[in-house]
């Protein structure tokens, strides 16, 4: 077993999460969390990062997370929150440096600056390095947030909708970078909404709904119409693309709506 393999047995957070494993996120793979809004994707990632106080039974490289010293756990995991913003009077360069220095406090050394440069270059932010955070667009801020994650080189990189505000070019740039990170042996977990991006970049999927895990396994076996249609309550067409990755197209809602009432499907699902 690799040192950075993450294996989740169970996660419980009263009323919000009741996940029964095993869910595996092996080192060297991109694991994508899929599910409708409110399924618990963010909460699960936060629980793994130690931000949400959940009852957690999980191991990293065979070691129980609960027995891991707090400092080691903080250094090993990094959770990138959903699209945020900041009114801080900090430049992009300062913000990325700040992220690195919270991990390695003390004087700013030339090697620190080299790390920051590399992270900025990785996200194509060189031109924005001197800009204040408050002046950035949503997509630009998202890239800064990703650079803040990149610069720390966490063993387990968890990102919540990292591409939600990005244009097509930047989406692919970020995901290809994550692909390369995973290929170099890092453990990558992503919450994504775009099924086609998931199909293109995921090695493994965790399908979540209503705080529970419906299915976890290799992407190929998860990303089928049989599994995804009930997950999102939609009708889908899934073809095999030319390169082998599935192409997923939404055809419409799965159930008819009663005029003025609740969709039938959601009522049925709760029974």
């Amino acid at each position, binding site marked *: 077993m690799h040192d950075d393999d993450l294996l989740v047995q169970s996660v419980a957070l009263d009323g919000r999460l009741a996940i029964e494993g095993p869910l595996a996120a092996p080192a060297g793979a991109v694991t994508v969390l899929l599910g409708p809004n409110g399924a618990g994707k963010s909460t699960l990632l936060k629980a793994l990062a130690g931000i949400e106080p959940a009852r957690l039974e999980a191991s990293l490289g065979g070691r129980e997370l609960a027995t891991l010293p707090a400092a080691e756990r903080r250094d090993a995991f990094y959770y990138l929150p959903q699209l945020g913003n900041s009114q801080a009077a900090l430049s992009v*360069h*300062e913000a990325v440096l700040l992220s690195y220095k*919270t991990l390695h406090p003390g004087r700013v050394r030339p090697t620190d600056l080299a790390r920051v440069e590399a992270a900025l270059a990785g996200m194509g932010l*060189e031109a924005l390095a001197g800009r204040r955070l*408050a002046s950035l667009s949503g997509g630009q801020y998202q890239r800064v947030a990703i650079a803040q994650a990149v610069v720390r080189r966490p063993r387990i990189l968890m990102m919540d909708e990292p591409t939600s505000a990005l244009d097509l070019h930047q989406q692919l740039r970020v995901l290809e970078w994550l692909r390369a990170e995973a290929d170099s042996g890092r453990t990558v977990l992503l919450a994504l909404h775009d099924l086609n991006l998931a199909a293109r970049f995921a090695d493994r999927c965790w399908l979540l709904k209503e705080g529970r895990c419906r299915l976890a396994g290799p992407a190929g076996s998860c990303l089928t119409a049989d599994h995804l249609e009930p997950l999102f309550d939609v009708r889908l067409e899934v073809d095999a693309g030319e390169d082998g990755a599935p192409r997923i197209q939404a055809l419409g809602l799965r159930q008819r709506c009663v005029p003025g009432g609740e969709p039938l499907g959601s009522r049925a699902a709760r029974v």
Partner: protein
Amino acid sequence: MSLEAAVSEVRPAPAESFRRQEARHRAWLLAGLGMLLVAFMADLLLGPGKHPPGQVLEALVTPEQAGPLVRITLWQIRLPTALLAVLAGAGLAVAGSQMQTVLDNPLADPFTLGLASAASFGAALAVVAGISLLPLAGHLAAAGNAFVFSLLAAGMIHLLSRLRGVGLDTLVLLGIATMFTFNALLGLLQYLASPDALQQLVFWSLGSLSRPSGLKLGLIAAVLAGTLIVSRRLGWQLGALRLGGIQAQAMGVRVARLRLGMLAAMALLTAVVVAAVGTIGFVGLVAPHMARLLVGEQQRHFLPLSALCGATLMCVADLASKLVVPGLVLPIGIITALAGLPAFFLLILRRRRPS
């Protein structure tokens, strides 16, 4: 390709522009130090007493050759007062900076959060009514009471801020309510006080640099130095708070603990300053904004410059209190309020603009 190459040649590399920015920030720190020295010297040389500045300067450089009157004026009145102005100004500015950082609210400072009023009431309780909450006497009793009450106010604000639905931006309203509460209590003390004690109460409500002592100076200097050292050690974590609570937590900062600890430290700093000089508003609010405007919010530049700005402002306010009305020394709290209120309005109006 050639166009991109050309663009990257014109634009300095991030490393280079960062180095330039650092140099600029250091230059501002030096400039702040220079301004403080100028204001401090002016505060020493000018004032009532009809001693020409030249004579005062002589007394400063060669005290043994100066006349006894000018020597006493400088060494026993103006120098301690000016030192108290520097320390109190820096202390209020540091407390304001860290409250703004920790509570993520540009309107926070010891005055707007009611900490200063609480501390002022506590100190007045010791001096006027002779009630000491801690087993201390004299100025220490005043400082002790001030600390207990400002800690109480800070604790209340912290607890209320943790309630659901009370955002960090509502805090200033809570602070203003706290301020009114303790002002009313101070008024009650005033109503009950003897004419003699009434004189002293004016000191607490309007602020005054007029009774410096070695103990007051030493106490502020010690607490200020302590908070600066702690802030420097925690600088990166404090900076991360400005990125938002979740992001800071993701970076491994224990947000709730850091907030609470810093609030307590700032309550202590506010208390020792207020116990020495009474309520002097707006320095702690305006100085951090000046520093932020000049060097941004990297703690290692922001905090020292904020302290320098606060000290300079207080020296200038002291100077103004001596010079605005010839022959009369106005309470310094009135000067800072009159000069600081426009800045407060400006900040409120700027906040209303959608970000």
